[in-house]
């Protein structure tokens, strides 16, 4: 049974030069308690996918143009009205944004910002919310938490701020936390601490995480399953060990090859040539074909290929390449 099932999600951004399909037919499942990683080049639609789940587009002219976002017990989030969705936000599904400095209101004290989410969904007094906030700060190992309650965000370091954001996200013990590059904006030395904290807290609460990251090393360390996105589509998905150890889509391979061998691969460092296609008017067929060293004429026609299981692949390991292993080996 899945906690979250995304089916054929389409999300469009209006821009002066046309409508960009930032998410174009994305499907994946997240099981309870699981950490699901999403990776891909910048601009491939990772954030757009995750923001679609709670419909938080930061004032950008975006809309969900199709598909379903099924949350166990709550129904289709994509079809919900704003009022109903507001009940789900913070209570069932929480969000952790990339930059903890800008993610906190600069003119509101920390304690009140954490208490706010509690008071929104539970009938508690100001004092009770404050006590709960204090406990939450302790849970994320913030030092001298009493003092921090009355601090403003700018008085805290980046790492502390992200702990506050995590505390806020965990306040109502949601079933799913969406973390959009939660450590990218942080000092390298605290990135690891924050990720381990997030994993530790979620493990103990049984919370699932969707983790967006650029770092395949992080995925390999803490994620259970993953999806690789390219130009608004999932091109490969499966258990992390399957995807990283036996990548079957040429894009995933190229991505791994472009990595300084921290995932334990012995191949040379090979950057991917070319640039991702336009999302306003994408090329026909496989979107990676123009950059793919294996591409055949049939790759460049028709609808983008769907995800499918390859012969001999592990359970739930799918990719969206129409070529067979012989073609891959031949090149």
């Amino acid at each position, binding site marked *: 049974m899945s906690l979250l099932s995304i089916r054929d999600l389409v999300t469009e951004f209006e821009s002066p030069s046309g409508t960009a399909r930032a998410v174009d037919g994305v499907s994946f499942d997240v099981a309870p308690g699981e950490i699901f990683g999403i990776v891909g080049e910048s601009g491939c639609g990772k954030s757009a996918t995750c923001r679609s789940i709670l419909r938080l587009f930061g*004032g950008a002219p975006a809309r969900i143009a199709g598909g379903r976002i099924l949350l166990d017990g709550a129904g289709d989030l994509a079809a919900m009205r*704003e009022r109903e969705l507001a009940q789900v936000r913070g209570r069932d599904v*929480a969000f952790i944004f990339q930059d903890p400095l800008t993610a906190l209101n600069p003119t509101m004290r920390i304690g009140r910002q954490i208490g706010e989410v509690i008071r929104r969904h539970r009938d508690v007094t100001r004092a009770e919310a404050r006590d709960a906030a204090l406990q939450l700060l302790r849970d994320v190992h913030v030092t001298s938490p009493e003092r921090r309650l009355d601090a403003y965000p700018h008085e805290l370091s980046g790492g502390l701020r992200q702990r506050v954001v995590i505390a806020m996200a965990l306040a109502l013990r949601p079933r799913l936390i969406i973390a959009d590059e939660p450590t990218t904006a942080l000092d390298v030395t605290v990135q690891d601490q924050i990720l381990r904290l997030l994993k530790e807290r979620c493990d103990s609460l049984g919370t699932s995480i969707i983790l967006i990251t650029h770092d395949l090393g992080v995925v390999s360390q803490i994620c259970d399953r993953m999806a690789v996105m390219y130009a608004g589509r999932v091109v490969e998905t499966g258990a992390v060990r399957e995807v990283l150890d036996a990548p079957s889509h040429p894009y995933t391979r190229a991505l791994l090859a472009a990595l300084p061998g921290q995932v334990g691969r012995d191949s040379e460092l090979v950057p991917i040539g070319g640039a991702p296609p336009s999302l306003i008017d994408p090329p026909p067929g496989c979107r990676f074909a123009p950059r793919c060293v294996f591409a055949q004429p049939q790759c460049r026609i028709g609808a983008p290929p769907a995800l499918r299981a390859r012969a001999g692949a592990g359970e739930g390991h799918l990719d969206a390449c129409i070529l067979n292993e012989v073609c891959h080996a031949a090149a």
Partner: protein
Amino acid sequence: MILAILKRLLMLVPVLIGITVISFLLLQIMPGDPASRAMGTRASAEELQAMRELWGLDKPIWVQYLYFLRDCLTGSFGVSIFHKKPIIDLVAERLPFTLAIVGYSTVIALVIALPFAILAAANRGRMLDNLIRQIFVVVIAMPPFWLCYVLIIWLALRMGWFSTGGIGDGFVANLGRLFLPSLVVGLSTAALVQQSLRAALIDTMKADYIDTARAKGLRGHEVFLRHVLPNSLISTISIIGVRVSWIIGGTVVVEKIFSVPGLGSLLIDAIVSRDLPVIRGLTVFFAIMVVIVNLITDICYALADPRVRLE
């Protein structure tokens, strides 16, 4: 905080000395003899001479300046030739009306600007936003004297809702009397505040912490009232500060038309009657007010935004 304020006040001393020098020198260039102005055309040469001696106009310039500096330091700012009173007394009589217009017009401006800024920001890029923008452009473009007369003819004479000018007795009476002049002044403030607040609202609505607030499940009005509006209003503090220092000396036309005895009309009367000490004293007084308003603006800023510290 208090230490910072004291420090700021201390830094004013050189600024104010500079202002006294400049205002003193500028007025030396002004044509017309203050003594003959004060005495009228029928005064004899001896009477004029006596007058000049009495007011110190026959002394060397630097002596006159030192007299002036002494007057500023003792707080009298000099003595009016025309009114034969210390300038500070004249200011004290008129300052309440000017401050009333400052406060009243600012309240009116906020009442007008707030809803239109919110409406425009919520509909940015659409018809309504453009319409509101056009309306306020027209408001800014209207000359104040013309607007004064339009309002007098319409609301005072034709509708009879307000008096055509003058001041009343007591707070309530003046609330009615000062409405039209404050409205004229407030409309320009409103246009400025509307523009800047609209921009600030649009900016704030894109901020990450607004997404955070919505991610908590807060409803639209909760997000707006608790997060968007307070953070946007901070940026209008400085606009209002600039307007207030301008209004203190700059409402001559409105004060004249509505016969409000404020500082603006005091200044214009002094210029007309060549009342040199009043012009000089007021210039220095206005400068002090501008500096004080600036300081108050900065204090408000520091209170509203925890990231800002008073330097």
